[in-house]
């Protein structure tokens, strides 16, 4: 009992540390990456390569006043940033970084991550509504309609994976994708359904992750050219800091989930590379995805709200439903 308990506590602490560290240092990575793309240095004063920037920013934010606007709903206003960070941390429980490193594996892990991910949009709604600010209100409505619109194709695409693997256990899903790159779910030939649409499924899933995490080009909720800052417009101090960290934590979870479902989790691309630990491969894959996130953000302009909703309801949902039927059919036929 006591040994298991120690293990659990250790894993929990590691997972939370990973989440917090990533949330802080992805800000740095994003700013450095943006600097590279825009031919400017980015933060480079504090520490080597500006590496002390995130903790210093955090300290600075903590020293600021958390202003609550006069008309605001105080309880919801303070609860919203906590609520946005909470599901982001909770989702890390069940993410398997390698065969060994997982805080707590569950046989419904996939469902659990989706449950927490969708409760994140609640925080946005609370934040926007409780601020009593018109920009925040519009942003909240936008963000929620965006989050719900992209949740459906995301769920349906994940169902195709559940169909192919026959389980919602994330460890089991990854185990079935070994040993080489040809067995990853993104490549249809050696997986059991032989579904040629799987690369499209991957693209749909990735697009939905972009939209769910409110990232450019789908950052309608934070569109600074019309809504100034969106749902967190009235937040200063650590209230803003939590929203900011939650955004990056969500990006990490989105990348982890994409890696687990489509890119073979901790498996190396080729079997003979197996001497490198699985966790290295896993981190490599998620950071490549995160780099893509950053790259997309600094390259594309923002879409419109109707363009965004039309893409989901008129294109992604029918395609993913069709893909689901096709996968099920192929599984039955072959």
């Amino acid at each position, binding site marked *: 009992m006591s040994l298991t308990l120690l293990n659990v506590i250790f894993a929990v602490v590691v997972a939370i540390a990973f989440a917090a560290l990533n949330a802080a240092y992805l800000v740095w990575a994003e700013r450095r990456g943006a600097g590279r793309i825009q031919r400017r240095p980015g933060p480079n004063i504090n520490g080597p390569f500006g590496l002390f920037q995130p903790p210093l920013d955090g300290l600075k934010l*903590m020293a600021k006043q958390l202003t609550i606007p006069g008309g605001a709903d105080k309880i919801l206003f303070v609860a919203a940033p906590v609520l946005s960070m909470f599901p982001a941390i909770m989702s890390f429980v069940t993410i398997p970084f390698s065969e060994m490193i997982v805080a*707590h594996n569950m046989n419904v892990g996939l469902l659990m991550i989706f449950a927490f991910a969708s409760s994140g949009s609640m925080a946005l709604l609370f934040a926007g509504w409780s*601020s009593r600010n018109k920009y925040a209100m519009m942003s909240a409505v936008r963000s*929620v*309609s965006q989050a719900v619109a992209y949740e459906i194709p995301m769920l349906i695409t994940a169902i195709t994976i559940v169909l192919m693997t026959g389980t919602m256990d994330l460890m089991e899903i990854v185990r079935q994708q070994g040993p080489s790159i040809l067995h990853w779910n993104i490549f249809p030939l050696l997986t059991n359904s032989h579904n040629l649409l799987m690369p499209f499924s991957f693209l749909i899933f990735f697009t939905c992750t972009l939209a769910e995490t409110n990232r450019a080009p789908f950052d309608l909720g934070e569109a600074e050219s019309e809504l100034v800052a969106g749902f967190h417009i009235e937040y200063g101090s650590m209230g803003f800091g939590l929203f900011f960290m939650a955004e990056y934590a969500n990006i990490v979870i989105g990348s982890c989930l994409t890696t687990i479902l489509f890119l073979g989790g901790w498996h190396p691309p080729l079997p003979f590379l197996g001497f490198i630990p699985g966790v290295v491969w896993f981190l490599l894959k998620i950071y490549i995805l995160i780099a893509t996130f950053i790259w997309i953000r600094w390259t594309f302009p923002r879409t419109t709200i*109707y363009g965004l909703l*039309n893409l989901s309801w008129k294109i992604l949902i029918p395609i993913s439903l069709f893909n689901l039927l096709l996968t099920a059919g192929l599984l039955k036929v072959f």
Partner: protein
Amino acid sequence: MSAELVLSSVIFFGLAVIIPVIMLLTAVFGPRSGGVAKNDAYESGIKHVVGMADQKFSVKFYLLAILFLIFDIEAVFMYPWAVSLRELGMFGFLEMVVFILLLLTGLIYILKKGVLNWR
């Protein structure tokens, strides 16, 4: 349910709530000052905000929310089916085909009704 599972869930849940709350302690330690203008909601520098923000909002978004409810429940309904498709066999497959076709018909009906037409 094993004791470890309960315990680890409680620990994790507690930490996940406590850490953000600790960060919000800045509300206690941070400076405190106020004023009419500072406590006003921001509205592009207009001093006194006209009209409240917590008011009736365009009905379009409520329609979207209701649509989402329908589709989301359908999607969650498919998960148990997806896990046990191998046991259910051909019957299960055909049943889901009928179900999804019904769903698609609904989607096409919504599109034809113009719920998602923005311009």
